[in-house]
């Protein structure tokens, strides 16, 4: 399987609820190379966390519909839960969104780590804790944190502890879901840089870094994938996505980011009018069409995923004709 550690093809996973299907992951295709950090961005509710859950847990009502996921040779969508469990932490590891909130205030950090390790069938002997201490040192935490309670640690420190445990078995693929969102800017920088360091040190193989904050992805991601309302919008090398976005949504997203040096008084940034569609029983067509300034009749049909350049793909009927200069209106 060449040097890709992950190959995802036409993956669909829906929430099966009483009223129908919430199509939160709908036809997602991408690959991840060894050593690569892929950033995943998109509006709240577009299906980023659902994509992560599709790989890992698929708890009800989330249901796998179709498509393939090849993780270093394992067809993980076809594996039984029992089989898959053996891959957890070793081959694939997830830092869930809101993991910070999951710390129990009455447990010592040491207990928290031990419980988590045991859940994944890892022996918590001296050797294990020696490794934990080594890794804590790597993230600039003193081993004394092991004997402290979570309320004594700041959000940034807790997030470092979480990173240490999630990567303790050197997973080939790490999914980090919004690990910087609840942190102060200083901890954001530390934690994001840490993710890149873990990759450089080959403690983790590759990573998918989920966040709604494109400016953090710009710092550490090799490539960026943009999702919109459960669909794939665009994927490409970070600089390409930022400088030559091909999808109108990507462009709008980048244009709405404030930068130091731009004040309202001097230059007004523009956002995107309207809100994303509801994903319940959503039908055909480009899901961005009601907000897209370039939409045409053709956009009532779902656009195919097309190749722009090596490693750069986009789903938009008009990407060629519009070019990357998306400033003009239709």
């Amino acid at each position, binding site marked *: 399987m060449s040097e890709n550690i992950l190959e995802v093809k036409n993956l669909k996973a829906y929430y099966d609820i009483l009223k129908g299907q919430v199509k939160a992951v709908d036809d997602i295709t991408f690959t991840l190379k060894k050593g690569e950090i892929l950033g995943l961005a998109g509006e709240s509710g577009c299906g980023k966390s659902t994509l992560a859950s599709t790989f890992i847990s698929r708890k009800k009502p989330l249901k796998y519909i179709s498509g393939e996921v090849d993780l270093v040779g394992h067809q993980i969508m076809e594996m039984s839960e029992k089989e898959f469990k053996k891959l957890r932490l070793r081959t694939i590891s997830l830092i869930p969104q809101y993991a910070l909130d999951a710390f129990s205030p009455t447990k010592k950090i040491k207990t928290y780590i031990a419980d988590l390790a045991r859940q994944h069938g890892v022996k918590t002997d001296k050797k294990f804790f020696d490794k934990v201490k080594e890794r804590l040192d790597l993230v*600039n935490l003193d081993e004394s944190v092991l004997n402290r309670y979570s309320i004594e640690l700041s959000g940034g420190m807790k997030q470092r502890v979480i990173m240490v445990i999630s990567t303790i078995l050197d997973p080939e693929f790490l999914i980090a879901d919004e690990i910087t969102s609840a942190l102060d800017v200083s901890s954001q*920088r530390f934690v994001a840089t840490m993710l890149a360091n873990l990759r450089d040190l080959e403690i983790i193989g590759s990573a998918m870094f989920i966040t709604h904050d494109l400016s953090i992805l*710009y710092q550490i991601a090799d490539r960026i994938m943009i999702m919109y309302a459960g669909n794939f919008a665009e994927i490409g090398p970070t600089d390409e996505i930022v400088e030559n976005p091909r999808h109108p949504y990507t462009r709008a997203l*980048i244009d*709405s980011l404030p930068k130091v040096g731009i004040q309202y008084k001097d230059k007004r*940034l523009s956002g*995107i009018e309207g809100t994303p569609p509801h994903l319940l029983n959503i039908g055909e067509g480009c899901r961005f069409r009601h907000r897209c300034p370039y939409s045409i009749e053709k956009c009532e049909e779902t656009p195919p995923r097309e190749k722009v350049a090596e490693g750069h793909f986009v789903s938009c009927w008009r990407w060629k004709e519009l070019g990357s200069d998306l400033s003009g209106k239709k």
Partner: protein
Amino acid sequence: MEKNNEIVMSVQGLSKVFKSGILNPEYTVAAKDISFDIEKGKIISLIGESGSGKTTVGKLILKLIKLSEGEIIYKGKNISEIEDKEETKEYYRRVQGIFQDPFATFNPLYRVDRVFDMIFDSFELGFEDKDQAIRDALYDVNLNPDRTLGKFPHQLSGGQLQRLLIARALLMDVDVLIADELISMLDASTRIGVLNLLVESCKKHGMAVIFITHDLNLGYYISDKSLIMYKGRLVERGDTKKIYENATHPYTQMLFEAVPEIGERWDPDEEFLPEQVVKDVKEFYQENEGKGFVEIEEDHSVLFSDK
């Protein structure tokens, strides 16, 4: 153009100490010796890490908690001395807050219209046609009244609910609006719309806004003045451009180094540690002992030492 700025509120030497525990009480100095003026129609960003005391300052101004020391002067009057029922009501009308989680402000069991009914019931707002006034205010914040009124909170998005609260503030002709981490739960594409709206409303209606955030870029984008807080202290204060161009306090400098920006990558060779700033600030204060809070240029002051 912008001379003779009218000061609506003046915060002077504000401090708040929280006491927790009864047997062995612990004291937290959440805010200490905070002073600044709020000018009519101006936006002030209040920036700092979590726990630095931003919300505390907001709550003190909103008269939601009692201050330990200092004074807040609103239109010439010390707000601690407002005891009269009518005056208190008037204060709560003119000085309002919108908080981080808009869902918490709405009762999920009632249609969103209730937030408007409540203000019309409680205050003499002086509109001839109440329904028309609400519709106008909703149009002002880019909401379609027909698609907003009559809905339950869960049927609207976070951004829509926040716009609804801005509309309410406009109806009440608020003088000072405290927006605490207002847009932190919104997406980049939606939040810029809410921000633009906030600035427009504020210029149009002469409403002053204290915009609490930890996002430096957003603070820069919308504010005229900035306040930087660190561990309960106001460490830098003044004209937003001046602070951003000439950040002087080590904490402010660290913030600028850490903020992620498109087009500028963090230096990978630089060892960046959030813990470092604690030492840097301590050293800075030691080197400058006795100096205190100093104006280093017009409309730009820095805390050089905490003693």
